[in-house]
């Protein structure tokens, strides 16, 4: 066993760092480091640069155009980019639908969809949740009825992150109303420009627009856009969720968060709390490395990734909470222009104050999305502990 880096890995880390310094826009980097919201372009410009380098789909096998990173490279890649202030890669294309397509799709579908994901030419979003199907995903009701070589889709998805930026949405739809909840579901790719698709923004508690309702009103979708067999979409769904939960712990970003906490405040009581979360991050990172090391030996990510998601979201919330605590009463002024727009306005308090409280509020989402903490714990208690 060995934690230290081999020279070739050190060289790789240097290469990633150099790439980030050359290609990441200073404005985007500044947004990351100050905790402000990104525009679509911040993501797209950066992701296209990664795409040109062949690094965007960094978790994919070479066979499908990935760079073939080993586990250590993946770890270094994520960490160095987070340190350099790169925005997180939007996961819906690269981490979610891409692997579903290369695992379950036809050759034709692979050729048609994978290049646009690798290059970030096409933006994806995830149409899983519905008003009546959140934690209970299998309760989804959006219908897709077969009409010759098309499906006609009707229904509503909700909480769709970045649907307003999306070109395509991958959806779980019901193709057999009479089957048991988890059967009779299919996995469909839908072009957002198809007539009958409407996106309505949902405003979050910090004033941000990041999620949406998506309505389908007699939307015609070619049968050729179905991944896998009809009524067997649940297999794709589960495969995707396992991938989603790995990496959702956001350890590299939390490491960056802890580093900036150490710079904020000298209050001894606060410092002890920072030390506490610092150590939690280390434990989480080590657990993630253990999971990655198993995968490197050919193992699959097991249900224990759920525990990483639970802790990872708690840690992100805690970091945001301490950052707000460090600001004190100057967390109170609400200056949305400084969070969401390009502006020369100056903060009324310290520079790090404006995003502190909104970020704390916003981070409550981490224990809800991607499977709530309660649901993750149910999974662990059933699948690992046998309760």
């Amino acid at each position, binding site marked *: 066993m060995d934690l230290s880096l081999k020279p070739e890995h050190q060289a790789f880390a240097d290469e990633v760092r150099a790439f980030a310094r050359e290609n990441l826009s200073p404005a985007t980097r500044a947004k990351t480091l100050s905790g402000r919201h990104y525009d679509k372009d911040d993501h797209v410009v950066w992701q296209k640069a990664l795409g040109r380098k062949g690094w965007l789909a960094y978790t994919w096998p070479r066979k499908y155009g990935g760079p073939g990173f080993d586990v250590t490279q993946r770890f270094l890649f994520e960490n160095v980019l987070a340190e350099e202030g790169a925005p997180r890669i939007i996961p819906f294309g690269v981490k979610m639908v891409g692997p579903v397509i290369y695992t379950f799709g036809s050759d034709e579908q692979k050729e048609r969809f994978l290049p646009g994901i690798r290059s970030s030419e096409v933006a994806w979003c995830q149409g899983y*949740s519905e008003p*009546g199907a*959140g*934690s*209970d995903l299998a*309760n989804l009701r959006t219908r897709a009825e077969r009409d010759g070589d098309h499906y006609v889709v009707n229904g509503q998805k*909700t*909480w769709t992150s970045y649907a307003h930026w999306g070109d395509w949405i991958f959806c779980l739809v019901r193709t057999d109303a009479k089957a048991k909840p988890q059967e009779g579901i299919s996995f469909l790719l839908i072009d957002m420009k198809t007539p009958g698709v409407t996106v309505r923004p*949902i*405003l*979050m*508690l910090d*004033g941000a627009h990041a*999620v949406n309702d998506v309505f389908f009103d007699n939307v015609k979708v070619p049968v050729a856009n179905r991944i896998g067999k009809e009524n067997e979409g649940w297999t794709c769904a589960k495969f995707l969720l396992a991938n989603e939960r790995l990496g959702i712990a956001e350890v590299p970003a939390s490491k960056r968060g802890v580093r900036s906490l150490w710079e904020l405040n000298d*209050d001894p*009581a*606060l410092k002890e709390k920072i030390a506490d979360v610092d150590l939690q991050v280390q434990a989480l990172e080590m657990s993630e490395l253990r999971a990655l090391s198993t995968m490197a030996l050919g193992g699959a990510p097991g249900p224990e990734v759920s525990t990483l998601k639970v802790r990872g979201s708690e840690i992100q919330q805690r970091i945001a909470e301490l950052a*707000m*605590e460090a600001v*004190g*009463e*100057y*967390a*109170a*002024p*609400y*200056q949305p222009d400084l969070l969401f727009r390009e502006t020369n306005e100056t903060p*009324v*308090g*310290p520079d790090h104050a404006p995003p502190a*409280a*909104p970020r*704390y*509020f*916003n981070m*409550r*989402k981490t*224990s*809800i*999305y991607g499977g*709530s*903490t*309660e649901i993750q*714990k149910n999974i662990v208690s059933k699948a690992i502990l046998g309760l």
Partner: protein
Amino acid sequence: MDLSLSDEQKQLQDAAERFVRDKYAFENRRKIAATDKGWLAENWAQMAELGWLGMSFSEEDGGYGGGSIETMIVMEQFGKGLVLEPFLPTVVLGGGMIARAGSKAQKEALLAPMIEGKKQFAFAWLERQSRYNLADVSLKAEKSGSGYTLSGHKGVVYNAASADNIVVLARTAGAAREEKGLTLFLVDGKAKGLSRRDYPTQDSLRASELTFDKVSVGADAVLGKVDGAFPVVEEAVDRAIVALCAEATGCMDAINAATLEYIKTRKQFGVPIGKFQVLQHRMVDCFTNAQEARSMTLMATLKIDDEDSVVRRKAASGAKVQIGKSGKFCGQSAVQMHGGMGVTDELSVSHYFKRLTMIDLMFGNQQHHLTRYSNLAMAA
């Protein structure tokens, strides 16, 4: 011992409940928050008419002879409705300091009109560097002729834009962070040399940054003793803390009620999510936390008038610690149990959560008051 409300107090509670029901349905509140001032003149007038602006002041000051319990009663209802009218800065802080430290002339000029609803106040103490330390004041007041000239900065001054008079904590002697050498001044909201930068707060209130550029005031602007303001300020802030605690208990009741209702009706997996034991236990913990918050608020309300200032200070800090802890637990739990709905702007839950969060940060957070309490407890 008797911890029940008198008949008059019960009537006050009923009236405040009715006010909140009539004026502060959640969509109404949204509209009030979006107005220019961020509060409604007609609501303020009604509060005056109902006697709330004068209830905690002595009859000789033009009030109705009530006290801390009355303040607790209305603040709790204000918390339930997330009321936006500036009761705390005007009545509890400004009015409270004028009643305690003001001369007869000052009281006549300011308190009487405030009680009638004709004057509002703000209290400016915080500066960029001061964090929660009330004595960390560097805004300077220099003697000039018979009066003073004020220069410096004040931050996060609630209700400054609407205030007719601003009570300003200034340094007349001593070094920054010294408790001696602080003096309170009554400054006209439109005084020459006073500029404001106004903004909304996270919880939809209004506050301002103030810059004092050689603002001159007369000798009659001094509120209380020159160089001796600290004890007055500390006491007023302790009272404000207890009032905030009462507001927080109202917020917790409301957010817990909304959550309980939600988990009884929201169905997943074919059952109301309130059937899941983790949520049941979390809801029980919310309930327990709100109980503790109410108890500590009541304790502090009953001790805030104690002659022994250590008793008063310990009570205020102790209650603030509890409110911080309980408010965070109830707020975070409510959001979590609402799932995605909890992090939207649409439901009231996120707004109660934001108010509870800001209450924790006001006048010293949980951590600050834990430290203050332990220092007082050790000294005793």
